[in-house]
């Protein structure tokens, strides 16, 4: 059994807004092992991105305040990090790949300057060494050196996301958080980029948290998967467990809508209704209002977590077994 790199233990967080408190994350519980790709899937607004922001300690900048639980990185509580340790944590231990590479790079600086800046933030290299390192990484990713003199607006989204990939390699992080890294890319280059990420993971023994709403991409990339709904993890397990026997009605609906998961069907299905309003702390199951199988109990009380095999668990009163 490999070591746990990251543990999110019963983590809850809220955000105060003019319209009242938003219960963004509730009792989030999962861990990421070393050398594994962990997937988080769910609709927009379910808390996927906020979870990653909390992990990276960026949540507080967005007004997200912890209300319970803890996040441990290699056994260290990330909230205990002082300024220096946090810089190291962001600059060395972790790196995020954002959804839109066009916006992630500063328009006023050349690619070279931004790569150099990344190496400098990581530390441990002189300017000449950094240049040499950058050249090697570009060669590895078969990006021509001419791109170094370009500004972000002169390059395509796919190329920019590969530049971000180069940053990942330069960074050598222990944990990559890939937040929908291919959503903004052309379908034709999505696959290529996913392969690149896999290659980086293998070669550098990095862990990845892969966030997506696309089941196909998640199934391709991830070893274990958490399904999020309404700020909660409603089901998690290995890829095999989830795809062969999803138990939560939401997971099943999600797989059906994406035409996945070995459930025979002749057409795509949609999930009726809207995601829950995060202004209210629901008494019952967050999915109850949209669930075909919901009974009175589902609306009244929050389900208890049930185990369905090694590490396969779901938050449901009426699991489909």
């Amino acid at each position, binding site marked *: 059994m490999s070591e746990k790199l990251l543990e999110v233990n019963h983590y809850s967080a809220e955000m105060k807004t003019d319209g009242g408190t938003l219960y963004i994350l509730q009792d989030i519980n999962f861990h990421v092992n070393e050398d594994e790709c962990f997937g988080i899937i769910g609709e927009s607004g379910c808390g996927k991105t906020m979870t990653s922001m909390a992990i990276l300690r960026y949540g507080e900048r967005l007004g997200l305040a912890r209300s319970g639980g803890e996040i441990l990185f290699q056994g260290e509580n990330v909230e205990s990090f002082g300024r220096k340790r946090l810089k190291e944590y962001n600059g060395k231990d972790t790196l995020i790949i*954002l959804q839109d590479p066009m916006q992630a790079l*500063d328009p*006023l600086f050349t690619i070279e300057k931004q790569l150099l800046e990344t190496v400098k933030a990581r530390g441990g290299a002189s300017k000449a060494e950094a240049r040499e390192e950058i050249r090697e990484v570009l060669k590895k990713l078969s990006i021509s050196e001419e791109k170094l003199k370009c500004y972000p607006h*002169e390059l395509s989204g796919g190329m920019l996301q590969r530049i971000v990939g180069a940053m990942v390699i330069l960074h050598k992080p222990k944990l990559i958080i890939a937040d929908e890294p291919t959503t903004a890319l052309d379908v034709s280059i999505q696959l290529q980029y996913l392969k690149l990420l896999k290659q980086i993971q293998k070669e550098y023994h990095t862990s990845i948290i892969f966030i997506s709403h696309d089941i196909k991409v998640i199934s391709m990339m991830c070893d274990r998967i958490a399904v999020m709904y309404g700020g909660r993890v409603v089901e998690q397990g290995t890829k095999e467990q989830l795809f062969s026997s999803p138990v939560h009605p939401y997971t099943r609906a999600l797989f059906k809508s994406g035409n996945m998961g070995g459930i025979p069907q002749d057409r795509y299905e949609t999930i009726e209704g809207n995601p829950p309003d995060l202004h209210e702390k629901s008494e019952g199951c967050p999915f109850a209002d949209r669930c075909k199988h919901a009974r009175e109990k589902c609306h009244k009380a929050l389900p208890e977590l049930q185990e369905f095999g090694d590490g396969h668990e779901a938050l449901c009163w009426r699991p489909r077994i």
Partner: protein
Amino acid sequence: MKYIVKKLLQAVITIFIVSVIIFLAVRASGDPVNNLIPDGATKQQKELITEQLGLDKPLIVQYGIFITDVLTGDFGNSYTSKRPVLEVIFEKLPYTLELAVVAILIAVVLTIPIGSLAALKRNTWIDRLVIGISSLEEAVPIFFAGIFVIQIFGVKLKILPVSGADSPLGIIGPSVLLGLAISGSMTMLLRNNMIQALESEYVKFARLRGIAEYKVVLKHALRNSFSSVLSFSAFVFANLIAGSVVIESVFNWPGIGMLSYNSVIGRDFPMVQAVVLILAVFMIVLSTVIDIILAFLDPRIRKAE
């Protein structure tokens, strides 16, 4: 380089069009001869003066004479003082330029730290204080504040001269007041742009790459918000050169504002033409220079052109 040549060519064409408009507008404003002849002058005297000034010729011929003279550097003599207008203008212009440059420098020096601080401390009491003071700076009429300053520092405390440009300290009163008035809106502009930059994905990504906060703020957020401040400075500068009549009259500052006001009232055609044309050229040159600087700062503009 091609970009610069193109910009300069555009500038030349604009200056030509402006010269035509000024020429026609001045002549549409009324007959100057009435201001020059003594009361009860005969019709013949009036015709004589009109002929002397060349105002009896067809407009197109008048324009031809005007533009050839201008191209050889001759803007003519003032109708009223009879002195060459260029001489008068270049006597006054440095005062106005000095005032404008010092005022804008004061505004920029105040704006960069204060605007950035307000953006970084958004929605705290610091931010609210900055917003309050900035609105005040914008709202107080400058002639009122000017009289106030003269009363306190000039008349009561006797630290600053009451008016005029004779003492080197004379610049302090008008330039600080103008600088404060400008920094009000400039600070708000920088604050708002900086907030946008601080919320951008590239700032988020820079922070999440572990780049030091001071670098994120100075290199990424400030630089991306700065071009708006620069454009605004140019706009304000242009306005100050052309229209600082109020502050110049309050502080009895011998600049171009007073000169243009007096020559319009006196229908001093050569003076008005020269003042407006020189200011127009000045502004076109200024905006061209600013465009080039902006393109230098922002690679996207270079590409778009």
